[in-house]
């Protein structure tokens, strides 16, 4: 994936979804080369993709931020990320961001036909995520609910 070309679409999708779904303004930092892995802030949503490119989209945040986002989405307060609604809320936000980004990427290059896996969520302590031999592009973004990070790894798919 030409991540230089495509990261802006992930950034735009994140800003848009946070604004439309969560009513949160997001200010974006610079795109960084992450290397093979990153340390999670405690709550990571992942959406895989295959097609002309294959890889992963990650949305990472602290558990406190995840709880705040859930409260905004559902209108109820939860105490811990072990509650299904918190994991599902994270999953849905990650799902919509990646769906929007990939829609734009597919439309920009007919024939790419990238399709997404269902979202998954991992929460824990001292949690690190690695994609060996793939380098990641990440962007740290600030919101009123906390710091979020998006991360994308990709390589050419077999179609």
């Amino acid at each position, binding site marked *: 994936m030409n991540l230089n070309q495509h990261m802006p679409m992930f950034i735009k999708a994140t800003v848009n979804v946070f604004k439309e779904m969560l009513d949160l303004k997001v200010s974006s930092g610079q795109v960084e080369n992450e290397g093979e892995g990153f340390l999670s802030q405690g709550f990571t949503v992942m959406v895989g993709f295959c097609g002309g490119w294959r890889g992963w989209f990650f949305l990472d945040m602290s558990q406190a931020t995840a709880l705040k986002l859930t409260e905004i989405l559902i209108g109820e307060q939860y105490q811990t990320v072990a509650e299904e609604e918190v994991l599902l809320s994270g999953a849905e936000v990650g799902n919509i961001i990646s769906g929007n980004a990939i829609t734009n990427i597919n439309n920009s290059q007919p024939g790419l036909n990238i399709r997404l896996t*269902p979202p998954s969520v991992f929460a824990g302590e001292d949690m690190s995520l690695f*994609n060996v031999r793939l380098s990641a592009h990440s962007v740290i973004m600030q919101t009123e609910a906390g710091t979020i990070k998006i991360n994308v790894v990709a390589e050419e798919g077999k179609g």
Partner: protein
Amino acid sequence: MDIKYINSFINGFLNVTEMMGISGLQRTGLSKKAKLRTDNDINIIIGLVGDIRGNVVLAMHEATACKIASTMMGGMPVEKFDAMPRSALSELANMMAGNSASQLEGLGVKTNITPPTLIHGQKMISLISQVETIVVTFNGNEGQIEINIATED
């Protein structure tokens, strides 16, 4: 999920572990699991897109992962779960997924796989499916390994 498809994942796993010198693996269980889990500190996830869509997660404790990496490297001692065992386990998951995908193709089911993501942490909770997850457990010389199959039919 159709048992034929579950078997493709089980056979993919057994074929590849055999190739890597990880012998003596016995299947000890097959069950449906509630969506949230908190056990294993090493989880390797591979996504599937195509005729079958979902996620497959290979899960185990760090000690088991180190022993598997050691076996894969011909018995070389592995004290810490660092770059080398991470690479070995990721490759194991990748090959298992590829082998399973080939078997599924033989059944007329075409599916593409993502690269593996390895997640290493403590006190983890995960949600890998909004439908059901099938858990197949194996026991071997290195310890217990779980395959979590969370796919939409």
